[in-house]
């Protein structure tokens, strides 16, 4: 975010990110690894198509019944002993979490990974209210130590090199020596976190899938920290967006298989937690209380807008960012948003509004790499184009927040000129001739030409156009 204006601008932040060669190398290397691992999991295009068609249809069916499924989820969870809380805004959600903690006098919290908690800026909020909130996912722990936000939704610390992490640990963790040995670094974090799990008075987690039929909260993870955060402290608070529900237990497996394979190239995650309620009578472990906070934060508005509602199919695998040539070059922080990359470029403008984030729908070359790998077939590029349209024009038909917020009169004029030159053969010919005569005089000094010529020579109109050549050859006109 720009310090002077307080506004967000992907132009400035991405240009700045491009100047950092180590950042670019870190992302390139990491994304190459993730792409190779994912590709190895889907060797057969026919199987891939079948898997994603099934996953997409489950997500689409879920969204078609969303209000009813959420009510069913609430009823089923309540019957299971899970207390359900509804939050329209992130402020509401933060207050709910704080209220639960205050009622139990809890001042120490451990957290599993949760992107909804990032939307809420929960850690900052809790710190301000005197609650220690410690991230227990290794990547999240690293960036929390350094006062940063995630740069990737699955690999939050992917922008950091081993050396940077080694330095950070050496500086910030008492008793930690500088070492670049990954096992030693992991052991250091484990030593700190182990103690915290047992001291914590509450645990927070995200939710990958919530099953309406059974009131089950599904959580995938690889480090065991998710299980520790949800089972060891006496209170567990799960956070989810309204879109994470599915109808039946049998809907879970088809989603999980594309989720873990797309995200990290794993056929299954190391841990799979199915949480169906607090500790029952006679059970030896588990929290005494389980709370589920269901957050809207603009999702209902997306749900109501057929043009963009497919955005809510997302299962947060991160494959779109791994494959995005823009994300790979600028990294996640340049987006100045909770969700970076292609999914963020369609989600953030919808939740924050196009007046504020009309820069993001254009942050794509529309190469379709994200669409090709999305395991739930979100038409990301189509939604980007829709948002560009709704950003450039205000219309009562556009339901998106801040429609018309990116309108630029000069650009409107340019498109009017473009239209005139391309609807009239005569004007097109005049433009073509103009390019021939005046093109060589343009030195690429200003505006779009300057932008183009920073990396390329000026295009030169050919001496004779295809129209000229076709006439010379005597090709029929009709």
């Amino acid at each position, binding site marked *: 975010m720009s310090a002077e204006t307080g506004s967000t601008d*992907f*132009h400035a932040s*991405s*240009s700045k990110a*491009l100047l950092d060669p180590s950042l670019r190398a870190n992302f390139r290397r990491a994304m190459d690894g993730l792409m190779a691992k994912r590709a190895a999991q889907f060797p057969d295009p026919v199987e891939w198509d079948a898997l994603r068609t099934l996953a997409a249809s489950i997500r689409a069916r879920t969204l078609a019944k969303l209000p009813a499924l959420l009510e069913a989820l609430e009823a089923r969870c309540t019957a299971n002993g899970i207390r359900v809380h509804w939050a329209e805004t992130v402020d509401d959600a933060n207050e709910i979490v704080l209220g639960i903690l205050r009622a139990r006098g809890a001042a120490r919290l451990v957290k599993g990974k949760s992107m909804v908690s990032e939307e809420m800026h929960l850690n900052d909020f809790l710190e301000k209210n005197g609650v220690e909130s410690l991230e227990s996912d290794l990547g999240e722990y690293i960036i929390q130590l350094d006062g940063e936000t995630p740069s990737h939704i699955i690999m939050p610390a992917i922008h950091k090199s081993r050396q940077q992490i080694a330095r950070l640990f050496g500086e910030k963790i008492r008793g930690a020596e500088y070492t670049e040995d990954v096992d030693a670094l992991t052991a250091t974090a484990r030593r700190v976190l182990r103690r915290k799990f047992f001291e914590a008075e509450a645990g927070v987690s995200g939710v990958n899938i919530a099953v309406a039929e059974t009131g089950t909260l599904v959580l995938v993870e690889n480090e065991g920290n998710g299980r520790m955060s949800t089972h060891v402290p006496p209170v567990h608070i799960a956070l989810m967006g309204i879109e994470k529900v599915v109808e039946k237990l049998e809907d879970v497996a088809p989603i999980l298989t594309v989720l873990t394979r797309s995200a990290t190239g794993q056929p299954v995650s190391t841990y799979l937690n199915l949480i169906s309620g607090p500790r029952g009578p006679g059970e030896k472990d588990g929290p005494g209380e389980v709370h589920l906070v269901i957050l809207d934060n603009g999702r209902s508005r997306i749900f109501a807008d057929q043009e963009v509602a497919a955005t809510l199919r997302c299962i947060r695998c991160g494959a779109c960012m791994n494959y995005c*040539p*823009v994300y790979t*070059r600028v990294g996640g922080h340049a987006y100045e948003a909770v969700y970076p990359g292609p999914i963020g470029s369609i989600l953030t403008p919808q939740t924050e509004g196009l007046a504020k984030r009309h820069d993001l*729908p*254009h*942050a*794509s*070359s*529309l*190469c*379709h*790499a994200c*669409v*090709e790998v999305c395991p739930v077939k979100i038409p990301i590029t*189509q939604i980007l*184009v829709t948002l*560009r*349209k709704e950003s*450039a*024009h205000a219309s009562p038909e556009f339901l998106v927040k801040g429609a018309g917020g990116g309108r630029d009169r000069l*650009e*409107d004029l340019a*498109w009017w000129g*473009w*239209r005139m*030159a*391309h*609807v009239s*053969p005569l004007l*097109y010919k005049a433009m073509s001739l103009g390019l021939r005569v005046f093109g060589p005089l343009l030195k690429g000094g200003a505006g*779009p030409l300057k*932008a*183009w*010529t*920073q*990396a*390329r*020579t000026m*295009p*030169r*109109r*050919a001496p*004779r*156009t*295809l*129209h*000229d*050549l*076709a*006439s010379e*050859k005597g*090709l*029929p*006109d*009709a």
Partner: protein
Amino acid sequence: MKPEAVYFFGTCVVDLFFPEAGLAGIELLRREGVRVIFPRGQTCCAQPAFNCGHHAEARAVARVQIALFPRDLPVVVPSGSCAGMMRHHYPELFAGEPDEAAAIAFAGRVVELTQFLVNVLGVRLTDRGGPETVTWHSSCHGLREMGLEAEPKGLLAQLGNVRVAPLTRERECCGFGGTFSVRYPDISSAMVADKVADVVQSGASVVLSADAACLLNIGGALEKTGAAARPMHLAEFLWERTRER
């Protein structure tokens, strides 16, 4: 079945910057005994305005093109991107408009050039050129909207004297993206710089693509950096190597 005649939609970038590629595409078709009609006054598929969200302007331009290609003949396009626009996005662009049916009918007749050469005409090529190493850039819209991969590669494989040195990241975008290249010039420049480096490391003397817009971008960057490789549209390369002199 081979049609007696086809329409040729040259695209604006080919018309203005790569006319030889357009003519080569026409000659490849005519050599197979197909009459090629080139409606004068054709301009642009309207993709630039469509992709930028200026759909009224895009529709106005698309409408003029549709009217120029009235007969029930294939519309052959030497660009995966423009073909993808006309074939897949015209129906969406005209949804709910009075001429929606005409747009859908037109879209159904649009075929990309190499797909027409291979899948409809089944061309067999005889290589008459000397040994040459080339590389292939699979343009994003051709690849991901039109499924263009087997056809251009199959045509290249028919040339006995041509070696194809693959790019390390053949499927990665060159950074053009229409107005993206001038809206986000730093990102676009970084992308095309990587593409140029990839072309150079391949050792190829020519970088081929079935999309002139990518060639405008990659070629301009090759020239700016003084690299020896030159850009060429696949149609022009195929025609130049196989025509009888």
